[in-house]
Each structure stands twice: as C-alpha cells, then as structure tokens.
C-alpha cells in the first residue's frame, strides 16, 4: 500500500532524513516513534508530499508521490491525514469542515456530503455538535472531528502525525479509542506517536527513528520484547517509565 524506498531529505545542507525505507501493507498498522527531532514527522509528511524530498521514492497504490506528473490533490484526497494541532478550519462550522473537501474535491453534492458527514460525526460521538464552530469544542473533540473529516474522503489509508501530543492528558483516551476502533476495522494506518499503549494494542509493526534514520523496524512483539539497538532500548525505558 505505502512503500518508502531510500528517502533522503535535506534542509539546505542539513540532512533531516537519511536513506529511510519501510512499507505499510494493506490493513496494517505501523507505529513510528523516536525522540523529538528524529525526523518522524518529516517522514510522514513526505508520504503525502506535504514535504518534498530530494532522493528516493514513495509509492502509494502504485502511484509515485515524487513524480512531478502525479496529480497530487487527487492522490492526497485518498490519503487521510490527522495533525498534531487538529487544523480544523476555524471559520467553518463542524459540518462544513467535513463537507468542504467532499464537495470541492470529490464533487459530491452538498446534501450527500452533509449526510456522510453527520454519519461520521455520529460515529465519533459528536453528532450533536455539527453546527458549532471548532473554537467551541475541546481539544479532544476537535481531534475526533479531524479524524471524521479525513474519513469523509473515504481514504484507503490514514496518516496520523502525533495526534495526541497537543492534548490535555484527560482527553487523550477519547481520541485513542477512535483510532483503536479504526485499526480494528482494518484501516491501513501509519501513526507517529509516543503512545506505546496504543502500539501494544493494535500495531503490527513498530518503527524507531533517531537522527533522521530508521534504527529499528520490527514486529510489535519483537520490538517490545527485545529491541536490538541500544538507542531504542534507552528511548523505550524513558517512555515507558514516564507512562
């Protein structure tokens, strides 16, 4: 589904990603973790070309992301993305947030888009808030809306960029619950997160990154059982003690 082949990226002369390769198969959930500044957010933004990369290749459903001939808007419309700071559009009501891209990108009718939006809001438990504005919701609610907004496009895979790290602790679980449900339904997911509880519960594989490199890429049991690299061990001990 998603294939990342030998990606390298520089900001000027500073290398942020070095020769990263991995893949996410259909129905798989892959968690990417690592210390801050390790390049994990940059890597996931390369997947839907929000960040350009200078070397390597990313293939989504046989389409090359880096190819200048690729219709990026079309490709992105099939790749859902959830951001750290939610990024709902503050000037649009919740239902209009869900409707906008359905109408403008997929060409659905307003009514059809509205029905689809309401159904998804219902699914994340926020149907009653459809006519409010993002500024009137809590962080956890906003992030659930953001997930619903991405799902409204019928994506064939979902990218999560630290979806819970801007949330107050008491709101993290409501978002994770939605994500777990999504994973159990068989959605293909690539998730940048420090929530190791989430990883243990639903991940198939865990990737550990440091200094722009993929240090470890292992099945979940293997990763939590006995990480091979010292850096991953160190990171895990810090993260797990913290929780």
């Amino acid at each position, binding site marked *: 589904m998603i294939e990342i082949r030998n990606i390298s990226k520089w900001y000027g002369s500073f290398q942020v990603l070095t020769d990263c390769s991995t893949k996410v198969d259909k129905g798989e959930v892959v968690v990417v973790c690592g210390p801050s500044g390790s390049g994990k957010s940059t890597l996931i933004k390369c997947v839907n070309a929000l960040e350009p990369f200078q070397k390597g290749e990313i293939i989504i459903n046989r389409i090359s992301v880096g190819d200048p001939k690729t219709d990026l808007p079309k490709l992105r419309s099939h790749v859902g*993305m959830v951001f750290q700071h939610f990024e709902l*559009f*503050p*000037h649009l009501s919740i239902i209009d947030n869900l409707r906008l*891209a359905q109408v*403008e990108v*997929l060409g659905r009718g307003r009514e059809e888009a509205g029905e689809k939006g309401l159904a998804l809001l219902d699914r994340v438990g926020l149907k009653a808030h459809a006519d*409010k*504005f993002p500024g*009137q919701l809590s962080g956890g609610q906003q992030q659930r809306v953001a997930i619903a907004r991405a799902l409204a496009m019928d994506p064939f895979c979902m990218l999560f960029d630290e979806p819970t790290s801007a949330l107050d602790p008491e709101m993290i679980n409501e978002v994770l619950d939605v994500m777990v449900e999504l994973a159990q339904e068989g959605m293909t997911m690539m998730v940048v997160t420090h929530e190791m509880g989430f990883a243990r519960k639903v991940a198939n594989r865990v990737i550990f990154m440091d200094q722009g490199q993929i240090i470890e890429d292992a099945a979940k049991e293997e990763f939590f059982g006995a990480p091979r690299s010292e850096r991953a061990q160190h990171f895990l001990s810090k993260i797990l003690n913290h929780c």
Partner: protein
Amino acid sequence: MNYHWDWGIFFKSTGIGQEIYLHWFITGLGWTVALSLSGWLIAMLLGTVLGVLRTLPQRSLSAIGTAYVNLFRNVPLLVQLFVWYFIVPDYLPEPIQTWFKQGLKPEISGFISVVACLGLFTAARVCEQVRTGIQALPRGQINAALALGLNPWKTYRHVLLPQAFRIIIPPLTSEFLNIFKNSSVASLIGLMDLLAQTKQTAEFTANLFEAFTLATLIYFTLNMSLMLMMRWLEKRVKVPGLISLGGK
C-alpha cells in the same frame, strides 16, 4: 478686518436656476463617494491578487507583488495622479485614445484617471494587509487543506482568504477610510468633488469659514459612519468561539 458671518449661506441661491449652495456640497459628496468606492473595488481585487502572489513559494511570482508594492508606495499620490491624467492617455492604443480624449466628457475621462490612480495606489496597501493576514495563519492550515486534496487555488479560496480577511478587517478599515480622504486629489485636476465644491463656495460667497466648516463636518461624519459600518461588518463575520485568529 470685516468678516460677514452667515451660517444661512448654504440655503441661499447660487444664482444658477433653483440651485442653493447646499446642492453643490451634495453633488460634491456624490463625486467623492463614487470615486472612492470605484477605486476601492479595484484596490480590493488587485490588492488581493497581489497579496496572494506575495505568499506563493514561486520566487518570480512573489517578486511581482514585491516590485508593485515598492513602486506604488514610494511615489507620491499626486505624481501618480499626474501620470494617469497627463501621460497614460497619450499611450493608449489608437481607437481608444481618441475616444478617451475626445469622445468622453472631460469629467468622465478625469473620473477614470482618478479611479485608476486611487485603485492602483491603494492596491499596494491592501496587498500588504492581505499578505500579513495570510502569513499570520498557522502553517498547518495550508497542510490540512492540501492533505484533504484541495488544490492551491481552492486552498486560498476556501481556507486561507476567508480567515485572512477576518483578521485584517481593522487595518483594511483604515485603508478604506484613507481612500475617501485621498480622493480629494481629484479636485486638483478639475473634478468637482466635495473639496472642489467647498473651494468654489468659499470663492463665490466669501464665507470661507462656513464653507470649510461644513466640509470638515461632512468628511468627519462620513468617516465616522464608514467606521461604524466596518465595525458592524466585523461583528457580523465574527466566528463563534474564536477570540483572535492571529494568535499563533
């Protein structure tokens, strides 16, 4: 020094038909409003396009916006007016040139020159506000719009510009008020706007204190009403639950 105060002067006949001096002020105000609103329309359209250009990643496109702003902000308004009034008409392509110079009434061709001047002058200022507004938005908003598959044009149209315009209503208000004040340069090329009518009344009646007092009162009231109108607009488009959009 004898000065004959006469506050009733505005209701006295000008000696031309049934006209009283107050009529002159009303016609003048009409010209002022027409000039300013027409210029504002151009300024908003062009200024928005230029402001968007200045935020684009393509260097050559944003350079166009930058060059425009530098040029139009560093040449005095009056010089710009002279260019539009004295020079540009001579370089219009032929059938249009004759039509513009001879086919149109002088006040119409003068009106067009002033509107072009005010519009292009103010566009440089609107451009800067639009650019500031867009740049004040969190970078993540662009990413979120692109990630949903919106193309750049739709990203600006549905996500960035509606938010940017809400942020910049206060500075835009002051540019909007400025164009009304700036439109008084029209009097210098013989258009009978509010200022020109005031001067004419002062010269005809010798009651210059009264004439200028009324003119400042009209400008003052105009200014206040426009400001209240913009405040009303700002409240109307305010998004619930949002105190300030430019927070981050």
